[in-house]
């Protein structure tokens, strides 16, 4: 190459180059856009799970029934604290509802900072523990409710729902509400796992 044909590069000192050469890049939308949507969905679902867990605890806790008559063989009063499983249910669902209330600020932090890993990971782990507790309470109460509805001829356990209709209804409704919160918690864990991706 001849030295005389060397290309010269004009450097204008102090002057900003005009943007006529290369096409100016438009600012890319932050790839965390969908993560923010996932965090908002997480917050809304958390509210729903909290309402459901609270409703389950309240319905079971207020399930007293006193029959207007009495017979020789059966109790004429039924309350949730007659069965230790139901006591466990009320306590466990109250704990799950309390945890969901306290986790709302962390969820808001995840909305504000969609790329942060720490709060999301913490929420995922605690949601898993809450899911286990809620499922345990709901399933144990469901086993007892099934027994109360159907009895068991093999063990001579008689169904008590024929006498205590209102009590059975309230208790069954509480179990259904706890399973709704279980489904919500499963979805919360899945959403947190998906939002933990590297984008």
């Amino acid at each position, binding site marked *: 190459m001849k030295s005389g044909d060397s290309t010269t590069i004009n450097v204008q000192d102090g002057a900003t180059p005009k943007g006529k050469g290369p096409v100016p890049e438009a600012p890319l939308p932050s790839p965390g856009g969908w993560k923010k949507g996932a965090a908002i969905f997480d917050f809304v679902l958390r509210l729903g799970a909290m309402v459901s867990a609270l409703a389950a605890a309240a319905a079971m806790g207020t399930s007293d029934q006193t029959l207007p008559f009495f017979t020789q063989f059966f109790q004429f009063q039924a309350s949730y604290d007659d069965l230790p*499983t139901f006591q466990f249910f009320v306590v466990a669902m109250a704990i799950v509802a309390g945890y969901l209330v306290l986790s709302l600020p962390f969820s808001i932090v995840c909305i504000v900072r969609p790329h942060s890993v720490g709060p*999301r990971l913490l929420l995922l782990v605690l949601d*898993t523990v809450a*899911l286990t507790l809620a499922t345990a309470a709901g*399933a144990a109460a469901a086993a*007892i409710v*099934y027994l109360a509805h159907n009895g068991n001829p093999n063990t001579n356990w008689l169904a008590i729902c024929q006498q205590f209709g209102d009590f059975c209804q309230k208790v069954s409704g509480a179990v259904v509400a706890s399973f709704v919160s279980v489904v919500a918690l499963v979805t919360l864990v899945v959403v*947190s796992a998906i939002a933990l991706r590297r984008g």
Partner: protein
Amino acid sequence: MEAGDISKGKPGFGANKGVSVLDFVLRIVAFVCTLGSAIAMGTTNETLPFFTQFIRFRARFNDLPTFTFFVVANSVASAYFILSLPLSIFHIVKSGAQNSRIVMVILDTVVLALVTAGASASAAIVYLAHKGNTRTNWFSICQQFNSFCERISGSLIGSFGAVVVLIILILLSAVALSRRP
């Protein structure tokens, strides 16, 4: 790119390999736990040498529908653990995988809910079998069926152990997903 780079894997995912190996080992532990529980509950059969007018003289797990659900849930869980071992091995080899880890988290959560439901429903019935309930006139059956009661109580241990292992597995997958090298 040298051939040596492929075997090293991506930089920064070395700790993920350790997490994946631990995940594989825990999966085998959970398989043994759930299989043991299902077998222990499924092979319950106690026949009393005498009989009375009011109480049956034979106790099996399918006398109570809750125990049938327990056996089914634990069998499904142990089959899941065996079938998820290849996916776990894939995560050891390819430590940076994301989508397959998310699939594993989803499946682990569903199986966690299933196993917890089976174990806690059976725990409620086992508690009732031990203590009975005077308010509802449900009598405890453990005084007659001693070895049946011991069997069903012992089979709960494996199932609850599998629940703890599943929580740790979900935690491990989440930690591996969240690494930003």
